[in-house]
């Protein structure tokens, strides 16, 4: 069923720089969804939304009672939030042709930094801001090394991944640290049940607007699609890439603090090694091209939702976590195949 729906909307899972602007009648674009609204829901995201909704409907019908309960929605939200927040950064990176493998370790580092500072008497809010600054420094480092020393970001961030893990273990003495539980600030940072998913949605919407409706976004796309051409047009391509590294690290650090407060009530210095891969998977499933030049943050949010629904649904109908990993792998490959095939299909149609 989902397959058929995907097929009926060919340009939907397009990530390779698509023709959706051409296929949508001009009057629809200029009249109904003028301005910011138009870019919030473009055809590119449609297939991942359709599949997510279809999965939701499937589990609603086929799982024993409990899937459609408020507490289970909370479970899904818990799965999705950190993936979606990190993906919002990774999409910006992927669009300009880079990737951050160290995101999951920035996620582990910042809460440990925050709690160490707080433990030494700094107010929590100040410790939080300093921890975000530390994350920004990590992103800046990734960006500067990649851009100015010419290393592939795959290598740079692989290095920082180990580096950060070691530093985090050292600071924490390899022990988890208890998360704070009291106060309005803690409630806003994930203490309240729905706060983390609201942060995720707010960040995704904001970054989607940035990507589609600001110079920053346009230059990010230009940098990824044609680095030399964008530089010739006077775009500061290096700065654009560094900015993407920076924001990814800040989002990762932020997600680490939210997750620890919200879900485990403690901060694990080992983080969650699969986190970054799942965030990148959500981006790709959502319609972002791994080779750069196009992407969608809203698509990544729905990609994360799709994976969250899948994992939660599998839990409820009694399938193991192992099955989820298998399905996740297959989903990534399918999404990439769909992206490249559809791009080829469009190019072929144009040539004819």
């Amino acid at each position, binding site marked *: 069923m989902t397959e058929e729906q995907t097929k009926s909307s060919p340009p939907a899972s397009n990530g390779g*720089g*698509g*023709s959706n*602007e*051409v296929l949508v009648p*001009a009057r629809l*674009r*200029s009249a109904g969804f*003028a*301005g*910011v609204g138009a870019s919030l829901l473009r055809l590119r995201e449609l297939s991942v939304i359709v599949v997510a909704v279809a999965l939701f409907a499937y589990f609603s019908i086929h799982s024993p009672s409990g899937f459609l309960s408020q507490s289970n929605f909370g479970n899904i939200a818990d799965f999705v939030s950190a993936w979606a927040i990190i993906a919002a950064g990774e999409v910006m990176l992927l669009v300009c042709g880079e990737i951050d493998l160290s995101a999951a370790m920035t996620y582990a580092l910042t809460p440990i930094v925050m709690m160490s500072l707080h433990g030494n008497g700094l107010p929590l809010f100040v410790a939080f801001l300093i921890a975000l600054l530390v994350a920004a420094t990590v992103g800046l480092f990734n960006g500067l090394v990649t851009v100015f020393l010419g290393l592939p970001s795959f290598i740079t961030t692989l290095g920082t991944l180990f580096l950060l893990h070691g530093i985090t273990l050292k600071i924490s003495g390899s022990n988890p640290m208890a998360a704070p539980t009291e106060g309005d600030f803690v409630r806003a940072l994930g203490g309240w049940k729905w706060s983390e998913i609201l942060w995720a949605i707010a960040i995704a919407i904001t970054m989607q*607007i940035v990507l589609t*409706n*600001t*110079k920053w976004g*346009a*230059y990010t*796309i*230009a940098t*990824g*699609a*044609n680095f*030399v*051409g*964008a530089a*010739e*047009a*006077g*775009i500061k391509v290096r700065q654009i890439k560094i900015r993407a590294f920076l924001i990814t690290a800040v989002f990762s650090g932020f997600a680490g603090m939210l997750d620890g407060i919200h879900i485990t009530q403690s901060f694990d210095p080992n983080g969650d090694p699969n986190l970054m891969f799942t965030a990148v998977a959500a981006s790709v499933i959502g319609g972002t091209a791994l080779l750069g*030049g*196009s992407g969608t943050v809203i698509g990544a949010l729905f990609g994360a939702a799709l994976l969250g629904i899948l994992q939660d649904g599998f839990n409820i109908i009694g399938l193991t976590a192992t099955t989820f990993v298998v399905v996740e792998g297959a989903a990534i490959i399918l999404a990439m195949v769909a992206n490249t095939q559809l791009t080829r299909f*469009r*190019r072929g149609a*144009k040539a004819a």
Partner: protein
Amino acid sequence: MTAEQAVSADGAPATIRAEGIGKRFGTVTALSDINIRVGQGEVLGLIGDNGAGKSTLIKILTGYHQPDEGQIFIHGEPVTLKSVVHARSLGIETVFQDLALINTLPVYMNLHLNREPTRGPFLRRHAMREQARRYLDDIGISIPSVNAEVANLSGGQRQAIAVARSVYSNAKILLLDEPLAAMGAKEGGIILDLIKMLRDRGDLSIIIIAHNYSQVFDVCDRVNLLQHGEITLDKKTSETSAEELLDIVAKEYRTGGKLAEGRGRYLAEIRDID
């Protein structure tokens, strides 16, 4: 400086004039004593085989290379082009054969690239679309829609958009490097029509670099033949013909000319690409 070089046909100073330009790479002389000038509204065809020094000359005129000898004048004022960005700020725009367009962005975004109008932090998409539509209508470029992504256009349409973008940025002097390379007759026709249109508007000076002169002969007011780093012919197109040019070039090949030397320059050009 002779009067003939300083002043274009209608008596106004040439928009761009290069005098006595020489360029060496190591021991290889790529260009020697090059004199060219283009008046306002004039289209100059700069023709020569691979290795003749065309791309070295273009790179000097766009500020990418600095000449070892000679002087460039813009509107009669001597200038030193320090960089491509500097040259562009003086109104010199180049459209290279490898396109500098962003394939995944729509046409109207490409036309405005790095010059986007904004309201607060947001792009004024509606205004950009309207301006792009009006401008393309104005210069007679027809594409399905300004919303079309560049990747979905034909080669000729893409080249036309690239030219249009350069002109849109208030170019005074437009250098087109092999604008018809790898294009069919119909595709090339789009570009030739565009060049005619721009010529007839009269406010641009255009230099077309080509190795296949018969393609561009029709749209040029004047042709310069570049052979082995020297300009060997400078004639109005009305006073010469494609056959005459063919004769000169063919004779060069028959006699062997300075082929060996030419090969050296070809290597120099390869090197300066790297």
